[in-house]
């Protein structure tokens, strides 16, 4: 009767949010991210002091600032990681629409801070680089399209996502921001690969790339000089790369000591693009290897967990986010050790940068949400196979 009078007692359909989250989240990846963030703060103590000094601020101004943004970013990350894939998809699509409009409006409303590329919106105290937020949104929406294409009678989602990728790459290249453009292209390629790109097409693209590179090398003097400069064993010591190389060598295995490094004073981008050089100089190879191991843990654990994922959207979106995250770290560190040609790219969570760290928080939060353990119906799989 009570029930008839007051309605049913609300019964929780599943277990409570927090315990479920704790049970299903990838704790190794989460731990790695938190440690990376901590290391970023530690390195910021060393690397951002010269910047503060140059700008006439108190020495640890940027560290404090980064701590505030970092806390915000971690909060966002944890909140997002509690969502389920469906919510992630909605959030991603909405975020994508917002960021896409913002990127498209950049030429009108954006500012270049005197750096020659219009990438930022200035809001007085802080500035926002919308392309950082566009990336995770793009991964989500592309994954959605591609997953839809798998349905019987679904839309040609791969084509849609490809067109979207082309539009974004062109818009970014026009800023110009080739770094972000290549990341978007890379993320799309990874998703397309995982979604089942035909091997013939992949080989054709590979062959075309090799042929194009060969052609460009032989017929474009500019390109050839860039490549030769990159391949040559000597490096001009007055370039950023030269300083970075020297810093890594100076650091050796155990570093020159906390705060003893000198490279941060000569490199204008020591706190962002070349923070790994600061790490190598002051803390040595040990810390660098730790950082690499942490990134590898996040990326590879996520990919391995996604292998068991049944839902195509979750699988694709997770793969795209993990690879974009990983490749950004690899490019940043690869540049410092001259494995890759110079390209401005931040080291996620470690480099200084407000919108960079928040965008990374959103992306990794989505990744953590997508890699959570879910019932995958392994038993029904087996049954189904037996039935066929």
């Amino acid at each position, binding site marked *: 009767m009570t029930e008839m009078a007051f309605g049913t007692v609300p019964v929780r359909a599943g277990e409570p949010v927090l315990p479920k989250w704790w049970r299903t989240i990838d704790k190794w990846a989460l731990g790695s991210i938190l440690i990376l963030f901590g290391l970023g703060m530690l390195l910021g103590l060393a690397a951002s002091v010269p910047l503060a000094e140059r700008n006439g601020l108190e020495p640890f101004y940027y560290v404090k600032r980064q701590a505030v943004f970092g806390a915000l970013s971690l909060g966002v990350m944890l909140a997002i990681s509690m969502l389920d894939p469906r919510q992630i998809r909605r959030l991603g699509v909405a975020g994508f629409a917002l960021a896409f409009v913002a990127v498209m409006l950049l030429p009108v409303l954006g500012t270049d801070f005197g750096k020659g590329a219009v990438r930022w919106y200035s809001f007085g105290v802080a500035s926002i680089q919308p392309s950082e937020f566009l990336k995770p949104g793009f991964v989500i929406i592309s994954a959605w399209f591609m997953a839809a294409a*798998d*349905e*019987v009678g679904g839309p040609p989602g791969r084509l849609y996502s490809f067109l979207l990728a082309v539009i974004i790459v062109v818009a970014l290249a026009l800023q110009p921001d080739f770094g972000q453009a290549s990341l978007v292209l890379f993320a799309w390629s*990874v998703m397309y*690969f*995982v*979604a*089942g790109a035909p091997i013939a097409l992949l080989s054709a693209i590979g062959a075309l790339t090799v042929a194009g590179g060969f052609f460009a090398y032989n017929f474009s003097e500019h390109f050839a*000089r860039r490549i*030769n*400069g990159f391949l*040559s064993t*000597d*490096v*001009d*010591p007055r370039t950023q790369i*030269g300083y970075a*190389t*020297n810093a*890594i*060598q*100076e*650091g*050796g*295995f155990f570093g020159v000591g906390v705060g003893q490094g000198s490279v941060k004073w000569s490199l204008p981008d020591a706190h962002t693009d070349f923070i790994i050089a600061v790490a*190598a100089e002051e803390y*040595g*190879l040990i810390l*660098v*290897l730790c950082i*690499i*191991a942490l*990134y*590898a843990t996040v*990326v*590879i654990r996520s*990919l*391995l967990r*996604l*292998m*068991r*994922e*049944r839902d*195509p959207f979750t*699988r694709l979106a997770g*793969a795209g986010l993990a*690879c974009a995250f*990983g490749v950004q770290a*690899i490019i940043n*560190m*690869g540049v410092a*050790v001259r*494995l890759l040609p110079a390209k401005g790219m931040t080291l996620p969570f470690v480099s200084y940068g407000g919108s960079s760290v928040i965008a990374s928080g959103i992306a990794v939060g989505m990744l953590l949400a997508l890699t959570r353990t879910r019932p995958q119906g392994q038993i029904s*799989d087996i049954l*189904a196979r037996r039935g066929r």
Partner: protein
Amino acid sequence: MRTPLRPLPRILDARAKGENPDAIERENRRLRGEATRDKSRQRAEGRLLVMSVLFLAAFLTVGLRMGSFAAARPEEPQTDASSQQIYSQRADIVDRKGRVLATNLLTHALYAQPPMMIDPTGTADKLVKIFPDLDRDRLIKDFTGARKFVWIKKRISPEQLQAVHDIGDPGLLFGPREMRLYPNGHLASHILGGARYGTEGVNSAEILGVAGIEREYDKWLRDPANGGKSLKLSLDLTVQSALEDVLSGGMKLMNAKGATAVLMKARTGEIVAMASLPDFDPNDRPAPLLKGDPSDSPLFNRAVQGVYELGSTFKIFAVSQAMQMGLVTPETMIDTKGPLRWGKFRIHDFHDYGKQLSVTDVIVHSSNIGTARIVQKIGPEKQREFLGKLGLLEPAPVELIEAPTGRPILPQNWSELSAMTIGYGHGLSDSPLQLAAAYATIANDGKRVLPTLIAKGGPREPVKQEFGAAEGAQVVSPEVAHKALAMMRAVVTRGTASYGDVPGYQVAGKTGTADKPDPQGGYYNDKVISTFAGVFPVTDPQYVLVLTLDEPTDTSGNEPRRTAGWTAVPVAAETIRRVAPLLGLRPEPTTPDTLDGIRLVKKD
């Protein structure tokens, strides 16, 4: 095979049972979707594994690379070679024995980046103290204006570098570059020419040849394909030095306004020494004359660019040709009664030599009338053809950028009268170098010799001439050549060039004294070009020397003497005396009976 979504038998069956056939289609659709998802999941599983492995490999690579960097000892960083876009290496130029004639020296250029300057005014003040030729106001204007880059000095010395460094302004910067250095100063200046900067960058500057062999071989000297190999010239630095020494002394002694000499290997045409006075220092090339006669500039190379009527030195060509054609022998008597009238033109001799002279004596005494009579027998066309074969009708093909400008001046109409005057060296202007090559042809048993400045085996270009015979072609027979040499030897032993008989070196040669043409028309009475063209030693001709003095006057006697025998010949004799030992020629012993009181002990 495609399975239909609506399998007909089952639909019919369902209809018969009264079921909804759409349910079958929906079930089929679901099964198919599950199958594709299953397939794509399995494929994705593999591909995700591939991605994981790739990422692992990438992270490992970065880590290993970091490790190898950390393990490497930090060494002095080397500048990236590929970033130097201006290729500044320029090959050295050396003489035939490898002694340096032109090389490169590291120096610095001084430039400023005004935006980086701390104290523009103070810096300008200090700079003016170091370089008094700089304009203070101009510097301040440059330093405080909108310019971001200002060249201050293109070449500064190490002391100046240190002084500027001590100013300590970060806006003052040094650009390393090489400069072209000619360590021997004036020596062989006309041959080397000079160099200047081409494209200039901050890190290096291009050096370009402006004249002489530097310009002619500019491409070769800058060609990285030669691998820094130096350009070896046929010159001999010590001989060049001795030649210039004697020539400048002789020029002063004979009050000449200019002088030139060419010393050439008779068999190969290799120029061992070549000088033109006045000369200049290629380290500091004077500016070319903008008006007036370019031949008044020290930059003018008289040996190559200067074309002169070279006078009686041409007589031997007429006589050689006549002997070659079988018209005369050395003993043939020629009518020398003067003056020789041709229309209203009269040809005189310096002295009256009587009614007749043998061909040898026509040469020995340098009879204009006798030569003119011999040329009459040859005829203008044949003479023109013969002189052409000797290379006297076109510029000497030597490896200097200026060589084509030494274009001979030919008569407008090669008439019989022109032929006769050309026979004794008037009416046709040639460069001393052309004359030397023609004499070398006679000395080389009548086989054509082409002049060259490049040592044997060097990067010499093949020469193609319009009239000139090919290198090594027989222009006169060896017998005729030997007879001509014998006549020239007689010129030295008992003729006009008696001062040229250097003991032991058996000099043969021919003098030439030509009145200088007056630009207003006609010839000057008191201005001559006096020339000695010689071969030594005559028994085995090794070297040809042509020495020319411009407007010499020997004032040692009672009246001024200008003939070559008194001016060019003594200077040439002194030259041979100086250079022959340097050339490694062994003097023939003089006959002992001319020495009083000394008896030579002979073994046999």
